[in-house]
Every structure is written in structure tokens, then in C-alpha cells.
């Protein structure tokens, strides 16, 4: 039993993710516990709002595993995020509320199918990574433009009005069960749902990244040609990673639409496409933990700036991006993490030097 548990932890540890020590995992367990206990002590509004901020982390993680680990720079994750919201909205408006979980699953599956098609075109065509960036941005902007044109009563699917640039309203929240046995995921239950899903996705990604597949992803990023010469089909690696990342973004989109009860084309606009890139670049593109921290923090800052007038918020993010690129190419959180690691290592060595086992010298 005990050894099985440690096998599990070992599968989650590896060079691809930060933090392998028992100390790290103790801190991680405490953090998860606090996250799940927080709704009990927090106020309804604050809990609901923080749950909403956590939703963005899925989008950040989606960009992170593509860009940071596989070297695919995609502006398009926000399109999958937004489209998943639309699909969930259309389905859940048209079916009774007790099946809303089914709508969520269908939404994510449909978006993964879409990412498979898009991914097939870009990876099997063999275009350069700069072209992938502009092609995915183009798709995002086109999706926004087309959905903005859908105002008017003729654009309806079942009883769901697409609503043009004003967006689709009246999307029901997620729920389980019906009648007396019902949990509707709003406020505190919503936070629990998001936090639990986030911990699952985070640990799942740690497992994936430290498995053989993770090594293939990193190899594709470091040197696609060499990976190919070793006999791996990098197009397949890129395509499957793209589909996984699309699924994570779609999960975020479904949660977003369910919290907001509303989804609009602006969730796929220029600004929306930019923000995930900034979270990932500023946090540290090659670390899912850095991205998780930076996404939550930056979205919190974004919200605070929005209360004071949104005009300065985008300016702040652009300057942050420029500073990151010029001064901290590895990301701000990753730079801090590395400094912390160095400090701990130096302390460990200093203690070793003093220990009697080594006779006071190393």
C-alpha cells in the first residue's frame, strides 16, 4: 500500500516539472487542502469570484503545454475556449437542466474534434512555427468576426439565440441530479468543482509531462529534426498534444460559460487572444506551476485594474509582456523559483559542511 503510494508520487516527479522533494509535496498537499477548505470560511461573493479567476488557469495551462513544452506557439486557444462556451450554451439551453453535464462533455468533445481538424491542417502541412502563430490568430479573429454577424432572430439553434456581438444569454449553470437530489454549481459548489478539476488536471499534466510522452513533447520542442531522425513522427506528437491542449481550453470555456451564464464573441477577440500568452510568458512558459500562479495573480490584477477603468489594464499587460521578453526571458515566476531553489541548495550544502559525518568539510 505504502509503496504503491510512493510509486504514484514517483510517476508525478521528473525533470519536466518543478518540485520533487518531500517538502514540496507536503506544501502542495497543504495548499490543496486550503483550497478545498476555503469556501467554508469565505463569503459567497468572494468565493464565487475566486472560482471564476481559477477558470482562467485552464486556458493558461493549455497555452503552456503547447508553447512551453512542445514549442507550438498558438494564439488560437482562446478561440477553442470561446467556442466551447458557445457549444455548451447552445446544448444546455436546448435540453433539460439535469443533463447539463452531458452538454459540457459534448462541448469538450466537439471542440477536441475541431482541434483535430485544425491541427491536422497545420502540422501535417508542415508550416513554420511563425506561420502557426499567425494562422491560429487569424482563425480566432475570423471566429470573432463571424459570430459578431449573427445578431437577429434568424440566427438561432433550437431555442438558443446566438445574439451577434452582444453574445448569447441565459446559459444555465452546470448541475448534477434533479428534483430533491440536486447540486447546482453556483457560488461555493462552483468553487469546489473548479478547484477539484484544477487539481485533477494539474496532477494529470504532471503525470503526462513526466511520462515518456512528456519526453517526446520536450524533444519535439528542443529539436524537431533530431526527434524525427530517432524515428518518432513529430506531426503525430504535435497533433495529439494540440488535441489535449484544446480539450483543457474547452473545459475552461465550458466552466466560464456556466459561471457567467453568458458568452460573447469578444471572448475570442484580439485582447482575449493576447492575455493567455502574457500569463504564460510572464509566469514562465516551461512550468505548469509557474503558469498556474501567474494566471491567477494576473487575472486578479486585471480585475482590480478593471474596477479603476479598463483603459490602463491592457497597457499594464503590454508593458509587462515587453519587460518579460527583454529582461526575464524565462518568466518572472520561474526566475523566482530558480533563485529559491539555489538558496535551498546552498543552505543544504552549508549544513552538510558543518555535519560531523564529513568531519566538518565537504
Amino acid at each position, binding site marked *: 500500500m505504502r509503496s504503491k503510494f510512493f510509486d504514484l508520487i514517483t510517476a508525478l516527479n521528473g525533470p519536466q516539472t518543478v518540485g520533487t522533494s518531500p517538502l514540496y509535496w507536503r506544501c502542495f498537499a497543504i495548499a490543496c487542502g486550503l483550497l478545498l477548505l476555503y469556501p467554508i470560511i469565505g463569503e459567497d461573493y468572494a468565493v464565487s469570484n475566486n472560482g471564476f479567476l481559477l477558470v482562467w488557469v485552464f486556458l493558461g495551462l493549455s497555452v503552456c503545454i503547447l508553447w512551453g513544452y512542445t514549442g507550438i506557439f498558438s494564439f488560437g486557444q482562446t478561440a477553442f475556449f470561446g467556442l466551447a462556451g458557445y457549444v455548451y450554451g447552445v446544448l444546455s439551453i436546448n435540453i433539460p437542466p439535469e443533463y447539463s453535464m452531458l452538454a459540457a462533455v459534448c462541448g469538450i468533445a466537439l471542440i477536441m474534434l475541431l482541434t483535430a481538424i485544425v491541427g491536422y*491542417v497545420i502540422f501535417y502541412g508542415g508550416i513554420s512555427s*511563425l506561420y502557426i502563430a*499567425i494562422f491560429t*490568430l487569424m482563425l480566432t479573429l475570423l471566429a470573432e468576426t463571424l459570430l459578431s454577424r449573427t445578431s437577429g432572430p434568424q440566427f438561432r439553434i433550437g431555442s438558443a439565440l446566438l445574439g451577434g456581438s452582444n453574445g448569447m444569454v441565459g446559459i444555465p449553470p452546470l448541475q448534477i441530479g434533479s428534483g430533491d437530489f440536486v447540486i447546482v454549481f453556483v457560488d461555493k459548489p462552483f468553487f469546489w468543482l473548479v478547484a477539484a478539476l484544477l487539481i485533477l488536471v494539474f496532477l494529470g499534466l504532471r503525470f503526462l509531462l513526466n511520462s515518456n510522452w512528456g519526453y517526446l513533447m520536450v524533444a519535439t520542442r528542443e529539436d524537431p529534426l533530431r526527434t524525427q531522425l530517432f524515428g518518432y513522427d513529430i506531426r503525430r506528437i504535435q497533433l495529439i498534444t494540440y488535441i489535449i491542449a484544446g480539450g483543457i481550453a474547452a473545459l475552461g470555456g465550458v466552466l466560464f460559460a456556466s459561471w457567467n451564464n453568458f458568452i460573447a464573441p469578444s471572448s475570442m477577440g484580439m485582447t482575449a487572444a493576447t492575455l493567455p*500568452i502574457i500569463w504564460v510568458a510572464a509566469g514562465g512558459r516551461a512550468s505548469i506551476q509557474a503558469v498556474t500562479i501567474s494566471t491567477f495573480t494576473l487575472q486578479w490584477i486585471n480585475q482590480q485594474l478593471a474596477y479603476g477603468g479598463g483603459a490602463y489594464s*491592457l497597457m499594464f499587460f503590454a508593458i509587462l*509582456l515587453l519587460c518579460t521578453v527583454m529582461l526575464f526571458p524565462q518568466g518572472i515566476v520561474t526566475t523566482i523559483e530558480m533563485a529559491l531553489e539555489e538558496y535551498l541548495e546552498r543552505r543544504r550544502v552549508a549544513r552538510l559542511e558543518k555535519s560531523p559525518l564529513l568531519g566538518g568539510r565537504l
Partner: protein
Amino acid sequence: MFGLFYQILATFSFLVLSTTGLAIIFGVMNIINFAHASFIMLGAVVTVYLVSAANLSVFLAIPLAALVAAAVGAFLELTLIRRLYNRKLDCLLATWAINIIIVQAVFLWLGTSQPGIDQPFGSFKVGDAAYNYYELFLFGCAALVLVAVFLLFRFTRFGLNVRAAMQNRDMAEGLGTNTTAMYLKTFALGAGLAGLTGALYAPLMPVSPYFGDRFLWRAFTVLIVGGADPLIGPLMSSVALGGVYGGLTWLWDSVAGSIGILLITMIFIRVLPRGFTGLWDILRARK
């Protein structure tokens, strides 16, 4: 029938003008300049300002606006972009950040709406429909830009050095070409052409800080379909996409045109990942 011809002509000149600056920077320096949209917007805003506040003639304001955009481009190259030549993707991010900073700065300074300026020339009629002379003038400008780029790259010392550096930068550097100075000039040229585009379209469209956005994704499409060659790319893909977009817009509406462009781009990515430039190379190699 003249309507179709006019629509294709207008789309062609729009695509050529909005892409050439981007394509030159991409072709020579292998950098995708995401600040392109903000240079276009700067050109338009400066034109509107010069015409409405300083009472200049439009035809004097347009070249001045292009010069302003070129100067801003040169300044940014000197201070920021030249530090990132070895990190292509970071270069993309930096120009993207610059784009947002310029757009937000103009927004905070001037607000969203700008005074409109009058469209020069006037209109003429064919049958019942009215058409603008200014669109024909824009077509002339697009043709002029293409010819000027051709002459610059084919018949000047600068063009010779640029073509050498495009083939092999280290070798050109070794043979005594100052590629640093050349890249500065190229970036300023690309920014200036973007500014010119914005200035030329300022009388046709409402000018706002987000003016450049509507050019951006079409310019990207032309770049993907055209490939890396700064002359063949914009020319051939503008002809092709102008035909498709103009034709579909004339038949149905602009949504059909946009979807048509998307489909063409996807087919190109799958079949000809290097665009028309790749096709051109294949044809030339066969000869």
C-alpha cells in the same frame, strides 16, 4: 459586370498595400512584425491630424504620415528589436507588446473617435451604381508601391545587399555587408509602407485607435499564401485572394468572402506550405 471588376480591383489594392510592409520585414529579416497594425493606425491618425488641425492638403499629409511611421519604426528597431534577432518568437511577442502599447497610448491620448476627413476626387457612375475615383487612385498607388519595391530590390546597391543577406546572412556579413544597418533600413521601410497604407485609407474609413486591426488578419493571410518573397508573395497572393474575396463578396456578401479566404489559406497551408514563393521556386527550378 463592372461592379465585379471594381470590387476585385479594390480588394487587390487593399491587400497589396496592407501586406507589402509586413512582407518586406518578414522576407528580409524573417521576423513577423506584429506592430504592423499600429504603424498603419499611426499613419491614419497622423494624416487626420495634419489635415484637420494643421489644414494641410491630403496629398502632402499622406507622405508626411508615412515618414512619421518610418521614424517610429526606426526608433523601435534601434532600441528594442535588434536585441531580439536571435530569438524569433520573442521578437514576435515584443512587437505584439509594442502594438498594444502604441494603440493604448493613442487611445488614452485621443479617445476612440477621430474627426473624419473628406474623400478627395469624387465619384462616377456606370449604369446605376456609383463608384469612387479614389479607389482607382489607390489601385495606382498599389501598383506604384509594387514597382518601387521591384526597382529597389533589383537595381540598387541596397537591394543587392538585401538579396544577398536573404540567401545567407553570415556570408553577406563576411563579404562586408553591414547587415545591422541594412536591417534598420528594412524595418524603417516596412514601417513606412504600413504608415503609407494607413494614410491612404484614412479618407475611406473611420479612423480610431483600432484602425489597424481590420488590416491585420488579411495581411497575415496574404503573407501565408504568398510566402517569404517580398515581391512575388504580395503580388501573386493579392491577385488570387483579391479574386476570391472580391468575387464572393460581389456574388453574396463579405462573410462568404472571408470564409472563402479562410478555405484557400487552409488548402495552401496543407498543399503549399511555402505559399506562392514555394510554387515560384518549383517552377523556376523546372526550367
